[in-house]
């Protein structure tokens, strides 16, 4: 994240691609880069001027995620609610801004 912010502060758009837990990623990348067996490739950190104008992704408001002293049970999603959210909303919130999430 520090690298992310460092790059963002210089004006770059960033992209963090994870290779954690992907055995094939290790096999594919280590020989290309001459990385020893003992090491693991964690991530690719890509940055540069974006090809298309970037946009701000929506973020949950503090009210939705912050509690005081005790966890607020109204913030808890049941398995069914969570499943429904993943099924109907997840793909939208990953790639669209808040206005486009219905």
């Amino acid at each position, binding site marked *: 994240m520090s690298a992310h912010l460092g790059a963002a502060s210089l004006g770059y758009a960033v992209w963090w691609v994870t290779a954690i837990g992907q055995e094939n990623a290790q096999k594919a990348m280590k020989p290309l880069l001459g990385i020893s067996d*003992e090491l693991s490739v964690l991530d690719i950190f*890509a940055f540069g001027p974006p090809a298309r104008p970037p946009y701000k992704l929506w973020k949950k408001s503090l009210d939705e995620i912050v509690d005081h002293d005790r966890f607020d049970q109204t913030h808890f999603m049941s398995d069914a609610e969570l499943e429904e959210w993943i099924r109907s909303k997840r793909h939208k919130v990953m790639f669209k801004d808040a206005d486009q999430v219905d």
Partner: protein
Amino acid sequence: MTTQTTLHVNDVEPSRDDDVLDLPKIGSRARYDPLMAVIRNRVTARAFDPDFTVPEEHYDLILDAARHAPLGANSQPWHFVVVRDPDTKRAIADYFVDEQRARAKMKMKFPTPAYRGLATAPGFIVVASDFRWVQAFPVLKNDDSDLNRICTGRTWSAS
């Protein structure tokens, strides 16, 4: 408990000296505000201008930020490989594209981005970790606690 802090004349420029802590006065927004300007406006892109050349000093500036990230037991097991060779970038992008296709065939309903754009990234840094540094962690009980699971299973979170 109070922490002794010194208010510096130049409150925005962090010290370049590794050994000197230059803390702002508690509550001073001299650093918070510019930091939030960076955080709030940080954007993800999945395709880049491939013709742009990242100035050498930018790698240094960015990786200098990276190496100051907090890490468990301050173990610093990381290695950063700056990739400039377009063929290597393309080969790595190819892997992720293939991986994505394999997952699509398995009908994993996971919205994955278009990895092809990875090859277009002018700045391309591979982060590797030496997991032998797990030994730098305090001894854990061999139980099913969250802590044990995190440290022996998922291990490091990247910075």
